[in-house]
């Protein structure tokens, strides 16, 4: 049936439709690619005269003003035109400015990558620490959990996690030290000051196949890994390998990046200073809450679902001790974690050009030693002898608690925060063990969960305003009436910052515990995540992997 059209007219119509569709498509893609910034995989277009600036962050090149409604538009336009005129007269100066801008970004890329490698090494430290704290018969299994955590969480983060967390970072939180990553500029859910999930850079390709983005990605993936392996400390000695892999995929793909987007990816929590006038928005410098509290409260939810180890609690509820099988590992592991933290905290400036890294490094150490000393003294007073494992946990507690405020406080506050963490971790361990009876073999819930929350809140108490002017886009020139005032806490006059910190840190705990509990209670209902009783009594090494950590001869070839 031809419906009255002749064959040639039908052909013409077909050709015309195809032609029009092609034209539209071309126009659309041309429009889209012309509007979008281009990724820079070779790193040659990142860092130029526009990134050359002084120590305070004032750029060498005034930016071209685009907002005609701006009251300062005329002055800005004149400054830009004057610069353009001068640039024509001094071509060598412009070339030098390009070089300086590039070297500045290069310095910071080198810094960020190297501190990222230090954080990667923390993986080994945590593996040693937790292995030493558990029983010999489960040592190989735990080592494999730590190892597989890195592998599978990375896969999940590579696929979707990074895009969810940082796909929109250029909108509200562009990492200027690394050249800005302009290609990561889209929220998948939300937008403007109410972003919920990023939407660019899936599979770390396309807009993420870029030098600046890769720098950020390397640094951020090892932070995600930290949250991923924290759970091992609470779920070891009784979890099946397959369900553990599911946990890691969940953390890497969804749990960590979602909250991470809200706080570090330019999402809604970071913008509460602009949107609701709550201080500088929710602030967490290196991740007391984003990394450690997420890991710690996820661990808590999983530990509750799994239940305590067999024999841990007697019939009357008295806890039984399962002593560490290798204290050497525990101490060496703790030192490696301390060393790695020198990357974790100072690295979070994403730049060596930010000399606050020195203060951060010292604050980190002060909190570490204060936490450890406090734990040793408290335990000695309560039980008559300092406990080696609590001394180590105390140091880690101090490190976790200082992670959020490290850039914003002075040395005295850092020491105090360490002491508070030392107290909290001791109380937390005893509380988990004796009161709520949640079996946490390595203290992960207390060290990372409780002290992570403490870190988020401490920032709201102790931040002294000497750093962070313009954080999250708030108070770039003046804050609370003072020029150049940075992130400030309750003790220095900013109650709103304390409130947002308290709320945000608590939200983190509720979110991590709640989401994990809901998802894995469901999973556990379908197939139990815990090993069988026989396996648990024998030790997980052979049943799950067919290998022992410490085979004692007696192995004969078949």
């Amino acid at each position: 049936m031809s419906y009255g059209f002749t064959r040639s007219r039908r052909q013409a119509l077909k050709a015309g439709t195809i032609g029009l569709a092609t034209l539209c498509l071309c126009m659309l893609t041309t429009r889209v690619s012309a509007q979008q910034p281009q990724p820079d995989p070779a790193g040659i277009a990142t860092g130029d005269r526009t990134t050359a600036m002084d120590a305070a962050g004032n750029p060498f090149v005034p930016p071209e003003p685009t907002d005609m409604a701006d009251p300062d538009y005329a002055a800005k336009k004149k400054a830009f035109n004057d610069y353009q005129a001068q640039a024509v007269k001094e071509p060598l100066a412009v070339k030098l400015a390009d070089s300086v801008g590039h070297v500045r970004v290069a310095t910071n890329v080198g810094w960020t990558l190297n501190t990222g490698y230090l954080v990667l090494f923390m993986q080994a430290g945590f593996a040693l620490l937790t292995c030493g704290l558990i029983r010999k018969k489960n040592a190989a299994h735990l080592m494999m959990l730590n190892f597989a955590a890195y592998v599978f969480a990375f896969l999940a983060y590579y696929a979707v996690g990074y895009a969810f967390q940082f796909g929109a970072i250029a909108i509200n939180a562009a990492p200027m030290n690394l050249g800005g990553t302009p290609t990561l500029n889209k929220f998948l859910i939300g937008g403007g000051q109410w972003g919920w999930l990023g939407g660019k850079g899936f599979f770390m390709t396309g807009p993420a196949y870029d030098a600046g983005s890769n720098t950020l990605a390397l640094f951020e993936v090892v932070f995600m890994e930290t949250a991923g392996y924290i759970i091992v400390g609470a779920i070891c000695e009784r979890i099946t390998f397959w369900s553990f892999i599911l946990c890691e995929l969940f953390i890497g793909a969804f749990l960590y990046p979602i909250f991470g987007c809200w706080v570090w990816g330019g999402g809604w929590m970071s913008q509460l200073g602009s949107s609701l006038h709550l201080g500088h928005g929710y602030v967490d410098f290196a991740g007391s809450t984003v990394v450690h509290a997420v890991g710690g409260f996820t661990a808590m939810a999983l530990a509750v679902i799994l239940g305590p180890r067999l024999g841990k609690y007697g019939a009357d509820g008295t806890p039984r001790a399962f002593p560490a099988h290798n204290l050497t590992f525990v101490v060496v592991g703790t030192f490696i974690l301390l060393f790695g933290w020198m990357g974790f905290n100072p690295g979070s400036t994403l730049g060596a050009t930010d000399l606050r890294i020195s203060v951060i490094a010292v604050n980190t150490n002060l909190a570490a030693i204060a936490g450890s000393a406090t734990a040793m003294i408290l335990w000695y007073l309560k039980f008559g002898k300092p406990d080696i494992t609590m001394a180590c946990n105390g140091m880690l507690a101090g490190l976790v608690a200082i992670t959020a405020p490290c850039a914003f406080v002075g040395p005295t506050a850092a020491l105090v925060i360490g002491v508070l963490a030392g107290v909290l971790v001791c109380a937390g361990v005893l509380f988990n063990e004796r009161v709520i009876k949640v079996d946490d073999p390595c203290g992960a819930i207390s060290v990372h969960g409780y002290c992570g929350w403490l870190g988020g809140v401490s920032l709201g108490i102790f931040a002294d305003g000497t750093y962070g002017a313009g954080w999250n886009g708030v108070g770039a020139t003046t804050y609370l009436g003072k020029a150049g005032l940075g992130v400030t806490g309750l003790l220095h006059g900013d109650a709103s910052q304390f409130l947002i910190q308290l709320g945000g840190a608590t939200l983190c705990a509720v979110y991590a515990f709640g989401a994990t509990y809901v998802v894995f209670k469901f999973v556990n209902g379908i197939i139990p995540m815990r090993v069988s009783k026989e396996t648990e009594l024998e030790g997980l090494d052979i049943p799950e992997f067919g290998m022992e950590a410490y085979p004692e001869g007696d192995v004969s070839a078949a």
Partner: protein
Amino acid sequence: MKRIEAVIRPNKLDEVKDALAALGVTGLTAVEARGFGRQKGHTEVYRGAEYHVEFVPKMLVIAVVADNLVEAAVDAVLEAARTGVIGDGKIFVTALQDVIRIRTGEHQAV
């Protein structure tokens, strides 16, 4: 005096110790051991090579008891150490010539 040697599962040590202590047997020696009876070992693969593990970790518990306590002690160990699954172990009862306490030099010091 009799020597009671029990080869038991390692996770049963605390139960056996408590069971014997309840009877008044306060001295014990525990030795980490590996052994097998009818409990088969298992075959594993290590980097491409098969190997057979026959020896299973066990605990060897040694207690010296007075003659009048032997039967009760054996029953206590049986009850504490039994799971019903192959691999529960065995108890050996042997007669002792003498028991001397080193600190005081007393003989027949059960």
